[in-house]
């Protein structure tokens, strides 16, 4: 360990993070949300959309859950009323039920006694079937990785495609994989995170990103399977389990064998103004699904450094990583699925900025030695000067190599201009290849001077993180968020979008998915 961190201080930091998270975990356990219920039904097999609806395609699952809520509330969960109705109406599939429900033929109630037991059993069986698909996908991934191989090097090379059109995305993703990408992330259209439903089908009209839909997931995973075979390594696919539909998208990812998902415990609150309680409930469920699916989550600490200053706010990244780690562990995710995020966002004009970056990156590395850290490129200080930007990205790549980062999100010289062009991605990969090839082993020669600039800076940031955690334990995490602690965004616990979708669980709440996913502590 190059930084010589005090294990006592590190342990204190983790202890404080656990204490800060505790009340929030309790809240998360005590509530459900419309999206958690929809996710459960998706696991139980519901698919498709009501294309006759005046507001455009509305997924059947939304129709059903909304109707359940209307009829009997969601505090007992959707599974009981839904599977009870299925039996009552003697319907074969949930889709048939949805159609009946849309036609106004179904009246949902919470079953009692033997009805409840029967509904519960049927629901559990259906959900278990869904989970078996998830399990099969996980096994299939393992098989394919064994067959085609993992990337030969660390960091893994992670590339974004974002044309808005799934067909163009496929073109770009294939070319990126051939040029060396190990992970492809399909960025979502602006606005999707605030949709309280998951769009259906293949889509072609996103803005600055492509809609996350089950069909788009399938298309892209199939394309990547093809190209994986061709390039002789398993190319991973990433999307976003984030926003109002976080739990459902997590389920769809498990069903379509996605490999990584952006999934943060606070991003939606801070950057999408989503209600904090909604977010904490949703993230817990979605992480349970990810744990089951063997999906690596990517947390979003990098974002803080786009709204706050990367030097002044460095310790908030560390605090958030510790919180994300705790929430993830609590939801059953092991270290090797924790793609904690951090970023190279210091103003390049700051003296010794590169060494400051090294200090921050090493701190994360040494605090989370077993986590597949995700190292994000400069964005905020990228400008239209694409030459400068290309250079800065090169130094970002170098910092990644020097500090042993696990997943390298490849920076684009056009960051301040457009969502990436085909050529931007290709040049960016050439940049990565040069740095990894030419300086791949330089870590051997990188020995921060004991008590030198880098070591001191890392200790300072850790110290500030411990202090901040202490204050959060005292004030409560929700208050800290309300005060603008993270990314300078002030988000009160009772504000934000999607609050109306949060429901306090009743005593008899039943959710077979939660039960099957809950790992024994």
């Amino acid at each position, binding site marked *: 360990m190059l930084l010589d961190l005090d294990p006592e201080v590190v342990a204190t930091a983790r202890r404080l993070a656990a204490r800060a998270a505790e009340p929030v975990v309790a809240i998360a356990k005590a509530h459900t949300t419309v999206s958690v219920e929809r996710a459960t039904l998706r696991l139980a097999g519901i698919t498709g959309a009501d294309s006759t609806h005046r507001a455009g395609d509305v997924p059947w699952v939304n129709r059903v859950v909304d109707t359940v809520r209307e009829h009997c509330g969601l505090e007992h969960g959707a599974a009981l009323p839904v599977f009870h109705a299925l039996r009552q109406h003697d319907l074969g599939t949930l889709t048939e039920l949805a159609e009946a429900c849309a036609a106004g033929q179904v009246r949902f109630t919470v079953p009692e006694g033997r009805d409840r037991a029967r509904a519960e059993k049927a629901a559990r069986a259906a959900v278990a079937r869904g989970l078996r698909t998830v399990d099969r996908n996980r096994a299939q991934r393992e098989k394919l990785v064994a067959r085609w191989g993992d990337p030969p090097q660390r960091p893994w090379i992670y590339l974004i495609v974002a044309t808005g059109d799934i067909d163009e995305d496929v073109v770009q993703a294939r070319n990126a994989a051939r040029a060396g990408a190990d992970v492809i992330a399909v960025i979502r259209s*602006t*606005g999707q995170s605030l949709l309280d439903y998951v769009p259906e089908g293949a889509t072609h009209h996103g*803005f600055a990103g492509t809609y996350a839909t089950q069909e788009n997931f399938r298309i892209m995973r199939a394309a990547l399977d093809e190209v994986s075979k061709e390039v002789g390594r398993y190319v991973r696919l990433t999307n976003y389990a984030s926003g109002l539909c976080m739990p459902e998208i997590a389920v769809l990812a498990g069903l379509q064998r996605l490999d990584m998902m952006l999934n943060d415990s606070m991003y939606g609150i801070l950057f999408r103004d989503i209600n904090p309680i909604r977010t904490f409930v949703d993230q817990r469920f979605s992480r349970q699904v990810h744990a089951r699916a063997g999906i690596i989550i990517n947390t979003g600490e990098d974002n803080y450094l786009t*709204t706050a200053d990367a030097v002044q706010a460095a310790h908030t990244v560390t605090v958030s990583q510790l919180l994300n780690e705790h929430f993830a562990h609590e939801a059953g995710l092991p270290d090797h699925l924790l793609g904690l995020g951090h970023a190279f966002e210091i103003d390049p004009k700051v003296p010794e900025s590169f060494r400051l970056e090294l200090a921050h990156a090493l701190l994360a590395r040494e605090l989370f030695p077993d986590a597949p850290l995700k190292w994000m490129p400069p964005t905020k200080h990228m400008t239209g000067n694409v030459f400068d930007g290309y250079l800065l990205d090169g130094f970002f790549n170098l910092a990644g190599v020097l500090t042993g980062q696990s997943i390298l999100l490849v920076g684009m010289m056009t960051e*301040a201009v457009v*969502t990436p062009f*085909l*050529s931007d991605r290709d040049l960016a990969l050439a940049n990565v290849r040069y740095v990894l090839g030419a300086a791949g082993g330089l870590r051997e020669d990188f020995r921060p001077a004991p008590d030198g600039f880098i070591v001191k800076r890392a200790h300072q940031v850790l110290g500030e993180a411990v202090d901040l955690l202490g204050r959060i334990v005292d004030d409560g995490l929700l208050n800290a968020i309300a005060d603008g602690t993270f990314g300078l965004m002030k988000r009160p616990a009772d504000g934000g979008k999607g609050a109306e979708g949060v429901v306090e669980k009743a005593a008899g709440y039943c959710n077979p998915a939660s039960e099957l996913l809950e790992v024994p502590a």
Partner: protein
Amino acid sequence: MKRHVRPYGDTTGDGMVQTSFTLPVPFGPKADGAARQLANRMGIDPAMVVHSHAIGEEFTFFVVYGPVRHVVDLEQVRVVEREYPLLSPAEVNAAVRKLLRRKLVVVGACIGTDAHTVGIDAILNIKGFAGEKGLEYYRELKVVNLGAQVPVPELVRRARAEKADAVLVSQVVTQRDAHLLNTREMAAAFREAMGARRPLLIAGGPRFDPLAAGELGVDRVFGRGTTPGEVASYLVHAVRSRKEVAA
């Protein structure tokens, strides 16, 4: 300064430019020829295709250098000249007090699905931008910042409720011309809802062309690197002009 100028590589008048692009053509001499043709059509002649490489099997990336035949006529350059003086915060406050005898109400938002608030916050928040305090710092301005992803109808409603003198919207995402579509939609909605009594409409964001105000149906467009002081000074100027027209 001369009226007619050409790009400068290392000698006055040499016209040298660099360009790069991708063509959906497989790598090879034919692709280089295609790149040369395109560069020629852009006015670069002779065009030196100094680099090309394959991107997959269907695309080729090129770097081209050469002299461009076009000449810039500086007298024909159209720019939005700042048509008003830059005022200090104190001057802005004094002018507003004199003009309106009440606070000037500014409503700001990122509209549509755009969630990039840093730009509008740089203009509105006290913290400001480039060393200048934001509009919240001005005593005679009342700033209502609605934040991100505000739907246009919601914006119109709030602007009306607040009796906004000016509405400031930010648009950062430009893919598929999102910024232009959203801005036009916003302008149309205000026109429809309030006609000539609509507030001043101001759009801003890094990829806007300041010349486009008319076409977008707004009063003013601010681009890359705008400072709060410019916006505040403009507000004074625009409110004064409106009053003068009304008078």
